């Protein structure tokens, strides 16, 4: 009988001690998420410090009391350290906070100005963040759309390590293209100016010839998909004759470039813009 009492008393004592020890432990849930509240068992009490990647939270706690950390306070995802000082001695524990759900996108669209009809020249990069600007590392679907006028292209990319990207060709039509990266609840818009490409079928003709001068003029300058090459683009007229060479760099105005050259007999006039060569005119014997 005495022996049974001894064992029962030992068991009860151990159970009470274990319970007391457990109550004095620092208890942190293992599924903490940034932006969501968290309850911490602060053990014997004292001062609780939560040292996070981008913040420190301090609380005075009574022994055995649970501490509530609100979602607004717990903003940073990553590795945290919980430290309790005082009470039954110092205790510390490392715990992890995961990022919240994807709610923000940082969208880089390059370049800001691009020639039309070029394959793979536009790149869009989306970094996916939660509402507290933590990088969301879980795969997330990001929708990219590029539209100019009636032309519209759409791609969906799944983020890896917090980043999703696409490359796209520029549309055949010039204009301000809307490049949008979107999550279900957020859209970020960038504008990419699609401009006419190099001139195509560059042609000129003589429009006036008098008093030893000849005036040449191009047809409206367009790229290969029919977009007008922007005003200000340089068109070079070169005249070669028995006296040497004359060069005139003229800017396109209202879609046309024009130049006045000396009317030398048997002169040859050529036209070019950038690396694109146009037609050539041969002037008659001083007529």
């Amino acid at each position, binding site marked *: 009988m005495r022996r049974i009492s001894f064992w029962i008393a030992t068991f009860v004592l151990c159970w009470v001690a274990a319970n007391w020890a457990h109550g004095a432990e620092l208890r942190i849930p293992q599924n903490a998420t940034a932006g969501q509240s968290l309850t911490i068992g602060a053990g014997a009490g004292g001062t609780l410090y939560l*040292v996070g*990647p*981008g*913040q420190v939270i301090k609380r005075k706690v009574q022994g055995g009391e649970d501490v509530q950390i609100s979602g607004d306070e717990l903003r940073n995802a990553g590795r945290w350290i919980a430290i309790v000082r005082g009470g039954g001695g110092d205790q510390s524990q490392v715990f*992890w906070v995961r990022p919240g759900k994807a709610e923000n996108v940082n969208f*880089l669209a*390059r370049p800001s100005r691009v020639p039309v009809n070029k394959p793979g020249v536009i*790149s869009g*990069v989306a970094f996916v963040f939660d509402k507290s600007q933590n990088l969301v*590392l879980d795969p997330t679907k990001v929708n990219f759309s590029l539209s100019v006028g009636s032309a519209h292209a759409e791609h969906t990319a799944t983020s890896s390590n917090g980043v999703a990207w696409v490359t796209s060709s520029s549309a055949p039509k010039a204009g301000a293209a809307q490049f949008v990266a979107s999550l279900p609840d957020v859209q970020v818009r960038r504008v990419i100016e699609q401009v006419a490409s190099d001139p195509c079928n560059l042609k000129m003709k003589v429009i006036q010839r008098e008093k030893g001068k000849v005036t040449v003029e191009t047809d409206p300058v367009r790229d290969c998909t029919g977009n007008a090459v922007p005003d200000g683009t340089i068109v070079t007229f070169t005249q070669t004759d028995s006296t040497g060479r004359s060069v005139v760099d003229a800017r396109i105005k209202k879609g046309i470039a024009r130049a006045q050259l000396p009317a030398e007999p048997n002169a040859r006039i050529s036209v070019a813009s950038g690396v694109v060569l146009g037609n050539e005119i041969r002037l008659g014997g001083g007529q």
Partner: protein
Amino acid sequence: MRLVRILILTIGIAVAISGGLPLAKRGLSVVRAAVGDSKPEVQLNVTNARPREVEESTQQSIIRDYGRAWQGMGTALANNQMGPLNENFTGFALDKLKQRVKDQQQNGLTTRVIDRGHKLDAVFYSQDGSAIEVRDTATVETQVLEGQTLIHSDEAQVHYYAVLTGAEDRWKVRVLESSEK
């Protein structure tokens, strides 16, 4: 009898050296971390970088600037100074670290980061070369002090995800986030 004495003496010296050397090494690293002059060792693997290959000169710059950033962060957290952060961080990473320093100051805490090296794996390098993301396996010892009293210490291998973007004369860390995975 003499032989036994010599044997005991030799064992004693061996025990003292085996215990003393790591202690001295640890003490030295703590002192170096406290003054913030420990340049961490950084290794970079670029075989997984997409969609663009990382140029040799960019690799060298990343190794140099990421190491500087950690050095700066160590100094900032050990001394509660903002200066070293402004030089090496930008965007969200800068905002968060500044807030951490401010909170540490308010609560009388400092953090010693004893950096034992970084193995970087470039996972993304943007087409235009303006942003790079690396996954870092860092070996760090973290000590939290309240005044001069050490209240927490741990050494662990921690995974970080860092996004760096090109700035005026260097790469700056724009995102720095540790992850359990």
